[in-house]
């Protein structure tokens, strides 16, 4: 059972600090980590390797420093890693990124399963997995939280829905995106981690020419969507203290909530909005 795991190095957005004056993100000193969902994806691949044998290869696209997450993955038990790094890759949207990754996967060679996290915490798009699957023309199962059975020709998984879950049988080769519920990622082992930092470590670094793509197919040039502007989210707060008896203030509060754009988020009002 050979697996490829797509991993991404991301800034730890739970530690994000905002400039109190401008409200902008302070990027300096932001810790970089392996994207949490991707760590769960890697763990899933390693569990299959422990049971059925085979090879686990991690693939990541990013700046040279993203080699850290590849070393971490090897420390956890991955057999080999590929870092896709090139100035031409930078500024890519999901279209260009998924193309780049799929070209690298074709070069890596044989796989039964591709694992990726459901989404990355810096972009939250959840698009890379399905788009890679489509470039490769293989089926997918997203939001997976359990692997029930593995056969040479198909895999049975549980995938999360909003109101429950679905048991899905999926033909192999396939791409699986994993959510945090799936497992607890193991810690890297020190001796493996040290091995991953040596010169002979099984890590390859590939650029655009290595995977046979043209510069204008990847990165910002190859992207179909472009960011026009970014800004700090700001809401004008009404800042009103409601006064009166507890019945009156609560009634007024509920009315205000009902009249606001937040009403659709509240389940208690949902039954009054008819389908």
């Amino acid at each position, binding site marked *: 059972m050979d697996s490829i795991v797509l991993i991404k190095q991301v800034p730890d957005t739970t530690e994000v600090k905002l400039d109190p004056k401008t409200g902008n993100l302070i990027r300096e000193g932001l810790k970089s980590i392996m994207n949490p969902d991707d760590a769960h994806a890697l763990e899933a691949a390693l569990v299959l390797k422990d049971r059925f044998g085979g090879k686990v290869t991690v693939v990541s696209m990013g700046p040279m420093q993203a080699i850290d997450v590849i070393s971490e993955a090897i420390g956890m038990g991955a057999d080999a890693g590929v870092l896709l790094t090139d100035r031409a890759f930078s500024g890519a949207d999901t279209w260009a990124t998924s193309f780049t990754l799929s070209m690298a996967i074709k070069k890596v060679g044989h796989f039964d399963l591709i694992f990726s996290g459901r989404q990355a915490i810096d972009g939250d798009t959840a698009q890379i997995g399905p788009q890679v699957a489509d470039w490769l023309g293989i089926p997918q199962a997203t939001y997976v939280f359990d692997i029930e059975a593995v056969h040479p020709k198909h895999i049975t998984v549980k995938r999360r829905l909003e109101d429950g879950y679905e048991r899905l049988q999926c033909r192999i080769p396939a791409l699986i995106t994993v959510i945090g519920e799936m497992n607890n990622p193991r810690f890297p082992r020190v001796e493996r981690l040290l091995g991953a930092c040596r010169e002979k470590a099984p890590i390859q670094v590939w650029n655009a020419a290595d995977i046979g793509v043209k510069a204008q197919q990847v990165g910002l040039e190859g992207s*179909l969507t472009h960011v026009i502007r970014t800004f700090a989210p700001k809401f004008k707060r009404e800042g009103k203290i409601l006064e009166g008896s507890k019945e009156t203030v609560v009634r007024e*509060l509920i009315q205000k909530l009902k009249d606001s754009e937040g009403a659709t988020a509240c389940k208690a009002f949902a039954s009054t909005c008819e389908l």
Partner: protein
Amino acid sequence: MVVWVEKDLCDGCRRCLKACPYGAIEIKDGKAHILDRCTLCGACLEVCRAKALRSDAKPKTIPDFSDHQGVWVFAEQRNGRLNRVSLELLGKAQELGQEMGQEVCAILAGNRISNLAQTLIRYGTDKVYLVQHKALTQYRTTAYADVVEELVKAYKPNILLLGASHLGRDLAPRISRRVGCGLTADCTELAIDSKEKILLQTRPAFGGNVMATIANRYSRPQMATVRPGVMAALSTPDKKGVIVRHAMRITETRIGVKVLETIRERKKGTDITEAKVIVAGGRGVGDAKGFKALRDLADLMGGEVAGTRVAVEEGWIPQENQVGQTGKSVRPEIYVACGVSGAIQHRAGMMNSRYIIAINKDPRAPIFQVADWGIVGDLHEIVPEMIRQLKSANR
């Protein structure tokens, strides 16, 4: 596009050799040769003094998309029930359609679901594209992607919207890849640019710490998924729409996936960073029992319970439900802070919530400064009263 060498001009100076990031140039017989590895990045063109390196690169231009018309919504249904987000999208689609003078269309795919077409029309659809097939009874990625791909290629919409539900987020990226159009995920705002007449798609990034506006100039349809609960549905009871039935061949072998079973279950408690409604408690809640009422309110509103560092240290709520600098950053639609004073560390984790409600005995508590609506009073009286009134409103 190609890069080539004018052999007569090349003096074999090797500058291009150094400039090439890919090792894709070699010098043979004193002249530069471009190898297959060349990515056409153009780095060599700038350094060639003899102007021997040439490229036929043209600047990227925006194609003419005037043949792409209509604002489309993918109408999501499971077991014959429409997802509410689809109606919300139709509400927005009416606004976008009006602004551009284009019609609102919906894609309805499934098996024996034609009755839903009328609902879509009553919520603003001019034209429903209906595809029914046994293979579409349950949602399966490939089958549904095939349907949307075929319709999009046949009828060329200008805009295509899907709900950012589990289904929408599973399906949309595959359509985007097939059709070759850009896709923006989880938008919270959509508008038409008045000059360019393109769709401006705004979405949160970096865990909601930054908002980004994204455009899709080079491909059609302009495709986006939109978070449920953000747009408002707009009913059009007297609307007369048309239904276009589109027949399709779908082969089972191509799909590759079988749904063995669908299990409905009550959610156990989700990640608070994904909750739309959060009821949070602080020191003022008093004890673990006090959180019971907060839990009831959260259940009623369809949300989650969270708390301050104090509430975690006292053992009233688990660590993973802590909001603030040392806990999680959240941005729900509604944040109800009960007995929370609003220290800066806590506010850092919740001030990006859309609406903030504060209930606190102390009128000087800093939480009131960031609240939309505040109630000065005892949460042990106010919260049960909210539960009572919400329940009766629901009846």
